[in-house]
């Protein structure tokens, strides 16, 4: 009796969930749960049915309720529920672990996933055995826990295992790269190693409408080709239910299961797959759209007008059921099922458990769909293949069914009546699935290789790889933002900004990596753009750390450090695990001279992400400010080890080495920096400074003259030139250059200029003529830098002095 209640109800709940009607779903699930609990207790008292089954029932309903809570954004409730009821379903335990993780209860999450005693935790193989089809995701979650608890080696291992089981988990690959592991994306993103797609898709089809099939209890996840019991071929969630077979409340997601039923497990598996079953019946049919990869269109079948479409799909696309898509060109992984394939797959004799159509059609008498009974009747008998089709077709099917082997008839008129073994069937199905997933896999290989290079900071290589992607993929927000980030890491902020602008045009809702955009604008001092960006982002996502980082950068550029600190603190509160937020906060504290707080922030950033070289750099800067150069050098070198291609870091290391009197080492470093990034004027500037302080004046002069060509507007270049000339004894030239330096610094930002210049001026000849003219050289365009290449004239020796004096006013 309970079965009658459950099926439509569960299906109804899934339907609500799929349409995001969480309050409805939650309410119904709560009622179902209560009912189950009562029945469960009743069963136990009466010992009518096997306690296991009712326990399974109630486990399912608990899991369903917990899912409702979780999807409504209440992991706490889900956690409490699951914790109290302790279901044994792997999927339910996975959900419990996930809730624990999100509530920061890492120890609990870990014990659920890989528990066992503390002394003898389970290995990853045990985990995968226990969790069946959810193993890859369970391992992924475990990896995240390890990362949070700073166990890098175990995290890497778990990620690798997870990817082996399910190469569709991109985030595992990302984590692996971010841990600093060098992974070969070609080896990771391949379906060749997969025995079945069960891990990638789940047993009852990955569609959102499906329940986690309790058959996992009965038919554990397949290991090895020979033992495959479930080959799941599922369609995607994207399909819209075209055909709601009677009664509507069926999960739209579909799953087709071609499974070899061994007599014993058959009943259980069947029972377990009820919804599956129904879903297969109901599956979406014929939406004409098909994305490019992973698509196996069904071919129009058989002569009798009876179609036997093959619902073979891999993770993505829609099925065009009877689409006459004879697309011979495979493209990105499309594969048309031809007759040969169908013959391969088709089935006589082999047990397709869910022969939905047939079963279903028997149904109309019993609206409650006691599938169990039906299926037991038909299960082993019909060789018919899964069909995603409309009613009429299925009716025809039904009629044809009693004839014995309709499958073979419809599938191939060539009457290949040789029964295929279940094994061959599965192998064939697998091959087709693999072919169809190949398109996505090859894209992932390319993208993965690029991401790997980026995470190792081989940015040029990453840029090349990303630019080689096909145009339609290149033009997406993610790829463009990765390009932006690559240029950002190369310190090429202009290019980075250009890419980020493209991202904003195409995907204005995109928030990830926007913090890098804001920092690039900060470096370029583009106030207007930055404040516009911050405004726009704040409109879109106040709950996102990246947005608050952008806002903080905006105020930092305006020198309002207090406000910037407030915003960065907010960013950190919103997402405590966002390392960059801590780094930016640290930099702001350094600006307000609160060095202890800054140090705390940088240390926190580093503990979250040890490869976050910006934080290491920040710690180095703090020590530099405290003039503890040895420590500063150490931390700068740390940062440089992580990001060896950053010329800025090399410059810092070089300067610090010089401060430590290691002048030769400093020069070596600076030479390397110049070779690496000739566009960075500061490398030459620092080298010139080192020459100057080592009294290698001619070399300094040469360097500075080259630099003058590179950046003709930089006041400090002229200042240094002045100092060089001063040391060389060319007092006049020195004064000239100093005055030019003053000219180029209208805001007087460099107070040291005045202090440095004073002695030079006082040494000059005839400087007593302090005619108090207010008209200084400021704004006088006669001292355009272009003039300087000419030999210095003796013109206006006194004007520099006047300029100085007019600057004295506050």
């Amino acid at each position, binding site marked *: 009796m309970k079965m009658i209640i459950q099926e439509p109800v569960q299906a109804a709940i899934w339907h609500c969930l799929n349409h995001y009607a969480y309050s409805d779903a939650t309410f119904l699930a709560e009622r179902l749960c209560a009912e189950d609990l009562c029945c469960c207790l009743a069963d136990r008292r009466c010992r009518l049915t096997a306690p296991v089954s009712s326990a399974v029932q109630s486990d399912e309903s608990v899991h369903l309720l917990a899912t409702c809570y979780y999807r409504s954004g209440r992991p706490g409730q889900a956690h409490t529920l699951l914790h109290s009821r302790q279901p044994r379903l792997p999927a339910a335990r996975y959900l419990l672990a996930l809730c624990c993780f999100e509530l920061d209860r890492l120890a609990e999450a870990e014990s659920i996933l890989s528990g066992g005693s503390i002394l003898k935790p389970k290995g990853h193989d045990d985990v995968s055995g226990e969790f069946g089809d959810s193993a890859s995701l369970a391992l992924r979650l475990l990896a995240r826990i390890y990362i949070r608890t700073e166990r890098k080696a175990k995290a890497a291992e778990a990620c690798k295992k997870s990817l082996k089981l399910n190469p569709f988990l991109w985030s595992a690959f990302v984590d692996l790269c971010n841990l600093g592991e060098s992974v070969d994306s070609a080896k990771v993103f391949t379906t060749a190693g997969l025995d079945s797609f069960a891990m990638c898709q789940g047993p009852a089809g990955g569609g959102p409408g499906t329940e986690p099939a309790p058959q996992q209890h009965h038919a554990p996840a397949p290991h090895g080709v020979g033992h495959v019991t479930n080959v799941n071929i599922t369609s995607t969630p994207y399909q819209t239910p075209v055909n709601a077979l009677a009664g509507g409340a069926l999960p739209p997601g579909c799953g087709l299961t071609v499974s070899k039923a061994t007599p014993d497990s058959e009943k259980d598996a069947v029972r377990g797959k009820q919804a599956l079953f129904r879903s297969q019946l109901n599956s979406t049919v014929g939406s004409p759209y098909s994305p490019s990869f992973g698509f196996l269109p069904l071919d129009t079948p058989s002569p009798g007008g009876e179609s036997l479409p093959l619902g073979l799909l891999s993770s993505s696309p829609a099925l065009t059921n009877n689409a006459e898509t004879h697309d011979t060109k495979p493209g990105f992984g499309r594969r048309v099922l031809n007759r040969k394939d169908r013959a391969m797959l088709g089935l006589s004799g082999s047990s397709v458990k869910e022969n939905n159509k047939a079963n279903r059609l028997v149904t109309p008498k019993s609206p409650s769909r006691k599938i169990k009974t039906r299926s037991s009747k038909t299960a082993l008998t019909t060789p018919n293949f899964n069909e995603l089709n409309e009613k009429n077709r299925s009716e025809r099917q039904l009629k044809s069914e009693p004839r014995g082997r309709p499958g073979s008839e419809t599938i191939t008129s060539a009457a290949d009546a040789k029964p295929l073994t279940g094994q061959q069937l599965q192998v064939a199905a697998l091959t087709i699935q693999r072919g169809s997933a190949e398109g996505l896999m090859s894209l992932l290989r390319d993208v993965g290789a690029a991401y790997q290079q980026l995470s190792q900071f081989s940015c040029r290589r990453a840029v090349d790889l990303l630019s080689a992607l096909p145009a339609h993929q290149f033009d997406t927000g993610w790829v463009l933002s990765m390009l932006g980030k690559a240029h950002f890491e190369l310190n090429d902020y202009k290019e980075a900004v250009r890419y980020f602008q493209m991202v904003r045009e195409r995907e204005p809702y995109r928030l990830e990596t926007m913090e890098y955009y804001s920092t690039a604008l900060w*470096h370029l*001092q583009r106030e207007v753009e930055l404040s516009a960006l911050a405004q726009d982002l704040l409109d879109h996502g106040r709950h996102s750390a990246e947005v608050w980082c952008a806002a903080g950068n905006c105020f930092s550029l305006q020198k309002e450090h207090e406000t910037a600190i407030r915003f960065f603190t907010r960013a950190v509160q919103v997402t405590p695990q966002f390392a960059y937020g801590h780094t930016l906060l640290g930099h702001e504290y350094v600006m307000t001279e609160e060095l202890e707080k800054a140090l705390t922030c940088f240390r926190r950033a580093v503990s979250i992400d040890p490869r976050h070289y910006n934080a290491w750099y920040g710690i180095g800067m703090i020590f530099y400010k405290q003039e503890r150069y040895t420590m500063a050098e150490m931390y700068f070198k740390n940062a440089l080890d992580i990001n060896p291609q950053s010329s*800025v870091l090399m410059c810092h290391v070089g300067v610090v080495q010089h401060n430590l009197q290691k002048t030769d080492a400093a020069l070596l470093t600076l030479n390397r920096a110049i070779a690496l990034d000739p566009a960075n004027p*500061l490398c030459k500037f620092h080298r010139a400074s080192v020459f100057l302080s080592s009294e290698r004046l001619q070399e300094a002069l040469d360097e500075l003259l080259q630099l003058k060509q590179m950046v003709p507007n930089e*006041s400090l270049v002229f200042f240094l030139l002045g100092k060089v000339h001063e040391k060389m004894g060319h007092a006049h030239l020195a004064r000239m250059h100093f005055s030019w330096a003053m000219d180029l610094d209208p805001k007087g930002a460099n107070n040291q200029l005045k202090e440095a210049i004073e002695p030079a001026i006082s040494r000059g000849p005839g400087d007593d003529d302090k005619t108090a003219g207010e008209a200084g050289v400021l704004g006088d365009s006669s001292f355009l830098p272009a003039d300087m290449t000419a030999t210095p004239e003796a013109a206006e020796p006194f004007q520099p002095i006047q300029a100085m004096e007019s600057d004295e006013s506050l």
Partner: protein
Amino acid sequence: MITMLPSEAVEEYDPYKEERLGRVREVGNQAVWSLSTCKPGFGVDQLRDLSLETYWQSDGPQPHLINIQFKRKTTVQQVCIYSDFKQDESYTPNRVSIRAGTSFHDLRELEVRELSEPSGWLVFALRGADDRPLRTYHLQIAVITNHQNGRDTHMRQVRVHAPVEQRGVTVQPVGSFVSVECSQYACLR
């Protein structure tokens, strides 16, 4: 050391502009402010809000004191006070003294200034011993007398400025780069 200033304060000095340009940094937020006396509703908040309309009004005997106590020894470059004779008349401070030290008991007078109908921002540049930048825990602004012998005083706004440590990572003691082409490479963020 008494200095006479012309009736105009230093012409159009705008501390906010200086802060925005990054030449100085306002550090009042890192300190604890207290007043010797004040009228309810006319206290520290009114002295430190960014509005020149609100003011602090003292309510007791002279000298009226503003105490600024930092958590740690802070380098202070100057103190800016806004005062307007036209609005405050007899409440306008006449003689102002700036003192610094480690606590209430060892304050040392740095500057005393006699004001004459001020109207605008008054800047008190502070130097420590040996003419080096002043580093202090405790700063005190004392209003000793008011115009027209008024008892209580009004003070509209006070800003405390610290020098900006502009020194980047450079070999020579230079400040920051002026051009964007250079400054973008000067640091990482």
